[in-house]
């Protein structure tokens, strides 16, 4: 287990290194690096000072090493717009995004897996067909459009839920959470639902496909032949057998959920990372863009690592082989 972990960490470091080269190339080599470091309205003296400080007159490989060193020290520069260190800016926005994303993923799994399993269990039933039709719409309809409709129906027409913002929050361990207040929860419902719907449709389709296939397997036949109830077959055998592909996709999709949060946060004025990145793109606040990209890559690597560990926990075949080696 330790060996595997070590190997994965090494891989992760390699991917991060590759990512840093890409971002460096994309931002420093293609764009004008000075634009990244200082605002467009800076004076000539400031420019000269920055060029000297960041060694922009040095050969490219030395510039890269400098970029890497600052990056490792956590120095992502300052935001032009907010005039704050980028890292601080991101860390204050991160909890809101995590709260939104995690809630959405939880909703998608909690509703999607049972619905998908049902649709795979009784594929010909009217309910299953309805679920599948809804899921086709769910993967087809763009997230931003569903967001608009949710606002129109629940905020404008019915007036049940607020159209945007985060509502009242409570500070726990120094960060603010909406989940813990009634008002915050009311503000969370629509954006979380909006962000969840695509993943929900995806979970339904995956769970259905897996269930459909496994219901025909000898494992299920054998379990039925032993007299297990249909519920026990689904709960103990099928669920365990479809868990692995579900966890894989869920892990991969988590990073994309964080990315899609950009859309949802924009529509619902949710003060998270996504709102920050869109603002930084439109105002060309490049240090924020660079830091966001690196952060997403990091997040993505951490998640992949967690998926690998989850595999080991879920699949006895991997568990034993690894502990044996």
């Amino acid at each position: 287990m330790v060996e595997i972990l070590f190997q994965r960490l090494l891989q992760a470091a390699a991917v991060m290194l590759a990512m840093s080269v890409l971002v460096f190339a994309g931002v420093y080599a293609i764009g004008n690096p000075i634009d990244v470091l200082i605002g467009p309205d800076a004076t000539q003296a400031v420019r000269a000072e920055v060029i000297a400080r960041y060694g922009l007159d040095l050969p490219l490989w030395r510039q890269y090493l400098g970029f890497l060193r600052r990056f490792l020290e956590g120095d992502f520069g300052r935001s032009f717009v907010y005039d704050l260190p980028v890292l601080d800016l991101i860390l204050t926005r991160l909890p809101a995004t995590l709260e939104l994303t995690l809630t959405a993923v939880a909703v998608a799994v909690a509703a999607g897996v049972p619905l998908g399993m049902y649709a795979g269990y009784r594929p010909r039933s009217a309910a299953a067909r309805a679920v599948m039709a809804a899921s086709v719409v769910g993967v087809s309809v763009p997230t931003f459009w569903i967001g608009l409709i949710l606002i129109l129906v629940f905020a404008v027409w019915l007036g049940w839920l607020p159209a945007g913002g985060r509502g009242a929050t409570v500070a726990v361990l120094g960060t603010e959470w909406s989940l813990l207040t009634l008002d915050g929860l009311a503000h969370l419902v629509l954006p979380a639902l909006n962000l969840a719907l695509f993943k929900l449709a995806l979970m339904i389709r995956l769970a259905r496909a897996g269930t459909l296939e496994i219901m025909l397997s000898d494992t299920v036949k054998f379990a039925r032949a032993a007299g297990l109830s249909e519920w026990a077959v689904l709960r103990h055998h099928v669920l365990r057998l479809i868990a692995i592909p579900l966890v894989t996709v869920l892990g991969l999709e988590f990073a994309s959920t964080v990315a899609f949060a950009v859309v949802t946060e924009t529509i619902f004025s949710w003060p998270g990372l996504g709102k920050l990145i869109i603002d930084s793109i439109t105002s060309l606040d490049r240090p924020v863009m660079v830091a966001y990209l690196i952060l997403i890559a990091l997040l993505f690597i951490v998640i992949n690592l967690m998926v690998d560990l989850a595999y080991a926990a879920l699949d006895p075949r991997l568990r034993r082989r690894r502990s044996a080696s």
Partner: protein
Amino acid sequence: MTADVALAVADLRTHFFTRAGVVKAVDGVSFTLRGGEVLGLVGESGSGKSITGFSILGLVDDPGRIVGGSIRYRGRELVGLRAAELRAVRGREIAMVFQDPMMTLNPMLAIGRQMDLALAAHGGRPAAARRARSVEILGRLGIPEPARRLAAYPHELSGGMRQRVAIACALLNRPSVIIADEPTTALDVSIQAQILREMTDLVRDTGVAMIWISHDLAVVSSVAQRVAVMYAGRIVEDGPVTAVLRGPRHPYTRGLLDSLPAQGRPGEPLAQIPGTTPSLLTRPAGCPFHPRCGRATEPCRTAEPERRADGEHGFRCHNPLPEAAP
């Protein structure tokens, strides 16, 4: 051998309603299984022998359906039972063992857990008692350190061990009938012989009755007292093993016997039955075997032969082979 009838199947018909047409996988199968007896159900793949087994437990998958006939277990009709009633029969009264334990055991669950689920399905016993029963049955099937094995996963066991576990699962709830669908086919030859011996002992010791489904007449002859040969969804010959094997009356059975390597004429090529099993979508008129049969005459092409019996030895053939010479 007791005379009581454990299972009586009469005119069973299981059809599959596919896009291409109705596949009559089982079409008028009748046989009886007495208590403590092993009945061999023999046929090529596609003859309907496995579907017969699944039909008895009501485990025919869509688009298949039992369309007619009756299956009586100790006098009680199983066809048409409600799902919950049928479920109570499965595993508790009639259990089933499949061909490949690698495919039947759940790779994600420890075998102890899988056995526990099978026991819990028929309720009424505390967890500790279920565990004790699992250990007992594993030990009985010759699995060393059964208590420790409960924590093992299927992939950690050898092929023979896995099949013993699968058999143990089937025996857990002390059923009185076991349907064994080619339980030794996927195993090494040496293991096959062991499992065969163990299962014969088991039948003798527990008095359980068994239907042994196989394509291999040689295996069947070593475990079964009676044998039924299936062809194209029907039983074409049945009777005591010795009678059928020594003096087959149906040309198809003869063909099966001739293709056994055990007939031992070293150097000579094995005999083959010419042609292939007919598609069950377009069953030939008359006797379904006539296109492949050397003895076919005009009636064989038009009229389906009825079962004729010579004592306990029955066969469906217009031109049966002569009785075995003494």
